[in-house]
């Protein structure tokens, strides 16, 4: 059971190699096959997450949520897709058309690029880059730019305010987000995600780096514009912020990217802090999936429990609370590692 997906990948690889292609071409073909697998995984999860969010929100607010289409409303997701795809595609006359359209096309790309290095199980990643974590941070920060493109290109005052807020928020929270991983990297001495997971064989990093994990959760939540940090969207004040003017397929891209980001954030948290595929009895990929969904549920819980915070409070909290704490965390981790080494060399440990 543990190797089921690896075996399937092996069969496909053998099948492709059967055409007599060279080593390099087989590798590239396998990347494409894995891309399709990841894409299907992400899309299915995104569709389910949309349903789950509405349902969970319903229960948190003592109402039912979607429950009409199919048992427990499970076919609501099919209807959602059909509805999104069958709407008219509107490009506002005043919009900066090139920027407006480009933003919708590229919003999903950074998210997909993040999934490329996530190890969904032992040996189950598309490409195991040796600078995986750094790559994730580099790629995911592109989202800021694309959201601003959407806000600017729409030529709508609400969109522009949403875009501006998104930039201010995502740029600010990126710093504690990036710093929260430093402790883990100091402990493992590697940026390769599979190595980071393997280092958590005995102790998950959530035990060694609890403060970093909390910083990661808060800053990650702000990075994906969810929960109490949904100021860029703010339905009640900005209509929908940067994607007010988008419709049909283009809106679908934004919506999908939002939930794919949520899932990606949970996947990163699982990999770096919750021990990835490690766990007893069940196969590794199932453990990964369970942990990922626990984090996703936590984020939904936070979103539907806390009210939206004011922008000055948000900025103060980031620069005057989270950032000093994350810097102190690096310092304490460094001192801790050095003290531990010293005790070991002196034979006291």
């Amino acid at each position, binding site marked *: 059971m543990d190797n089921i997906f690896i075996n399937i990948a092996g069969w496909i690889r053998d099948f492709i190699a059967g055409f007599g292609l060279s080593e390099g071409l087989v590798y590239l073909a396998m990347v494409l096959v894995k891309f399709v697998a990841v894409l299907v995984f992400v899309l299915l999860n995104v569709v389910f997450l949309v349903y789950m969010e509405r349902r969970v929100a319903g229960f948190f607010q003592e109402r039912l949520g979607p429950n009409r289409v199919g048992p427990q409303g499970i076919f609501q997701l099919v209807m959602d897709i059909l509805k999104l795809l069958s709407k008219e*595609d509107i490009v506002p006359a005043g919009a900066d058309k090139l920027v407006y359209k480009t933003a919708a096309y590229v919003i999903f790309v950074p998210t997909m690029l993040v999934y490329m290095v996530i190890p969904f199980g032992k040996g189950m990643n598309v490409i195991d880059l040796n600078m995986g974590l750094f790559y994730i941070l580099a790629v995911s920060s592109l989202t800021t730019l694309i959201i601003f493109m959407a806000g600017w290109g729409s030529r709508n005052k609400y969109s522009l305010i949403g875009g501006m807020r998104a930039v201010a928020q995502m740029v600010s929270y990126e710093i504690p987000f990036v710093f929260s991983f430093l402790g883990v990297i100091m402990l493992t001495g590697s940026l390769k995600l599979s190595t980071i997971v393997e280092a958590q064989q005995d102790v998950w990093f959530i035990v060694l780096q609890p403060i970093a994990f909390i910083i990661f959760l808060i800053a990650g939540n702000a990075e994906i514009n969810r929960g109490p940090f949904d100021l860029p969207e703010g339905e009640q004040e900005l209509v929908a912020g940067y994607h007010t003017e988008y419709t049909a397929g283009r809106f679908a891209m934004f919506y999908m990217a939002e939930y794919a980001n949520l899932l990606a954030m949970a996947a990163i948290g699982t990999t770096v802090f919750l021990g990835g595929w490690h766990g007893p009895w069940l196969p590794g990929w199932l453990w990964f999936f369970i942990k990922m969904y626990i984090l996703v549920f936590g984020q939904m819980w936070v979103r539907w429990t806390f009210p939206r915070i004011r922008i000055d409070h948000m900025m103060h909290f980031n620069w005057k609370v989270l950032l000093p704490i994350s810097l102190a965390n690096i310092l304490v981790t460094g001192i801790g590692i050095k003290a531990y080494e010293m005790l070991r060399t002196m034979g006291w440990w």
Partner: protein
Amino acid sequence: MLQQYSGLGIYLIAAIIFPFIIVFVALILGPKRPNPEKLTTYECGLDTQGPTWVQFKINYFLYALVFVVFDVETVFLYPWAVKFQALGLFAFIEMIIFIAILVIGLWYAWKEGALEWM
């Protein structure tokens, strides 16, 4: 190594193509009945007043500046963190000094009110 990055290239191309497919499908399935009313900017049903692309609050820019300082710092911190255990005490103290300089920078920005939202 090179193979990995060529794989990344293929992956990137595939990821860029996918949204075009979705938008294209939506374009085929959706109706196309544009009229001038529909194409106006949606601002809660009111006609839009004045230009949209105006001068913006300076605060956003100040935060961006502080961000650049710290983001460049992370570029230095990451390689240091990877090699932390191998580098020994000297690199550790060196990095404490480096962070201390940045903390002074943060303190200065704080003192000068760059972190206040006005």
